[in-house]
């Protein structure tokens, strides 16, 4: 996997709260048996009408906004545990999602697919939405080493948290399975202890 250190990008704003996984990727697109192609159906029912024509005023169809950072309203990714939602976000080309609150499972799934969820305060989030309204070309900078996110329009920064282990995984491009496989002896030891109970 690609390593992640810092990213400066224009943003795609989605100032809607409680965006659930059924909106991110509707259930009828869950039938694939590989991880590819989900980006095409990200926000499918907001993005295309019943005939499959793009809905003009939806942000992904608006050429004014593009970039590798999705900025979404509070409580992003609630609902189902489908990792397809994370594949869709990743597949579309987002590397970072910024919100003031993420549903737990989505957050894990995003990280397992090297999409970095960045939690900011409600006020910082509103400011981003205000900035992008006045300047659609504004950028955010996410610095994983320093754990800061900067609104380059206002110059304001905020720090975000991520546990040390996951941070290492992102910085080095490693995944959890590699790590777990290296710990098989520990697992077998645990199982032995358990059967004696």
């Amino acid at each position: 996997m690609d390593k992640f250190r810092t990213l400066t990008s224009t943003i795609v704003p989605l100032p809607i709260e409680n965006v659930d996984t059924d909106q991110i990727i509707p259930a009828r697109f869950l039938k694939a048996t590989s991880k590819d192609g989900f980006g095409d159906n990200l926000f499918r029912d907001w993005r295309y009408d019943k005939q499959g024509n793009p809905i003009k005023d939806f942000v992904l169809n608006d050429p004014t906004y593009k970039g590798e950072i999705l900025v979404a309203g509070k409580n992003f990714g609630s609902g189902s545990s489908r990792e397809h939602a994370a594949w869709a976000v990743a597949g579309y080309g987002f590397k970072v999602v910024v919100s003031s609150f993420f549903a737990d499972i989505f957050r894990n799934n995003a990280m397992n697919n090297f999409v970095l969820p960045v939690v900011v305060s409600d006020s910082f989030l509103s400011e981003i939405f205000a900035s992008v309204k006045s300047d659609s070309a504004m950028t955010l900078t996410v610095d994983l080493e320093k754990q800061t996110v900067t609104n380059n329009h206002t110059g304001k920064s905020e720090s975000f948290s991520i546990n040390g282990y996951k941070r290492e995984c992102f910085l080095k491009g490693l995944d959890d399975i590699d790590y777990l496989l290296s710990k098989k002896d520990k697992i077998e030891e645990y199982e032995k202890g358990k059967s004696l109970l």
Partner: protein
Amino acid sequence: MNTLFDKIWDAHVVTKLEDGPTQLYIDRLYCHEVTSPQAFEGLRKRGLDVFRPAQVCCMPDHNIPTLHQDKPIVDPVSKKQVDTLDKNAKDFGVQYFPIGNAKNGIIHVVGPEYGLSLPGMTMVCGDSHTSTHGAMGAVAFGIGTSEVEMVLATQCVFQTKPKTMRIRFEGKLKAGVLAKDMALYMISKMTTGGATGYFVEYAGEAVRALSMEGRMTLCNLSIEMGARGGLVAPDETTFAYVKGREFAPVGEAWDKAVAYWKTLKSDGDALFDKEILFDASEIEPMVTYGTNPGMGMGVSSSVPSIEEMEESGRASFAKSLDYMGFKSGEKLMGKPIDYVFLGSCTNGRIEDFRVFADFVKGKKKADGIVVWLVPGSWAVDRQIRQEGLDKVLNEAGFELRQPGCSACLAMNEDKVPAGKYAVSTSNRNFEGRQGPGARTILAGPLVAAAAAVTGKITDPRML
């Protein structure tokens, strides 16, 4: 001074990474056809076997038709997912209940039915409603497909330990109020994100009084307020339910297990990160009026008015009501509906069918509405027939379909058409959940039964 959750969690910690997550041992992994293919494929790519195949149980449930299950699945993409699970289960030698098998059904209904889900266990599945199994007095939660792959490969997942919350329902439920109403009431108070980051223990008089089916319904909906999972301390109700089930321990092992299970409760001085108290006697039969499960109210109440909403939530609220075709401040009682769905891992158990059948007995299905009665598993179907409930239902003009997830997420043919209203006993009323444009009103099996015989949103206590 440990909570029940701490006790089970701590007993499953393999290691804790410094400034990182815990490596947690998983006793049982459940897999269905939608969230597992990429995980099995990942194993193949890495050249790995399933580490503990005896602890993995798979079954297709999401895509399967609810009619003519003996015939091949018509939709080619659904068929491919189910065939892929068939192949994966065979290739990797895990426990498998295929379509048509007497043990097939919705995973979260089947697991407890056969004693695969037991008190004190850790259980995961690539499915958020895995929280259902917490009713056994276990730690059960949904995971993503990458994590399914981790468990297949190592029987472990990485998890950050959630915070603990206790929700107590004191007092007694009123007549005509069910576990589903408790859950919808709770979510309406907590909101859909109100328990994010927490694992919830349900306690109090009204929870103790619930049957195992009722506890499963309550734990099932934990995820709808954002909780990682929910659980209920095991007690005599639990032991009586588990005893004699096919994969439950027997003989000496049973005695040993029960002795251990009896230690599984929160200590008297246990500290929770958060405590919530509800008065069970306040709860009315519930319905939802919006497009998330937190938008619920007593069936005879009025939709909240937009002015009551916080500024930041008004746009979403208006969007939601617009989708539902409801107006701010209006009453929903008496509104005509088009579909009724009884089923899902929330309310597809024998008790739900008993409640529904008992209510419609001697009445008739309303004209012009479509009613889908979908048992959660073949075991539920068998019991329905054994108890003669199928006859009662038939006489009232209803027919049973075959088990599966069905209209809960409409991955098979059971889709509610755009713009139509469905009173549904499932768990999610998200936009398009039951079919593109479908309008879902979540409710318990009694409100569903009342809607099925009147064709309208009805308070079942009025009939």
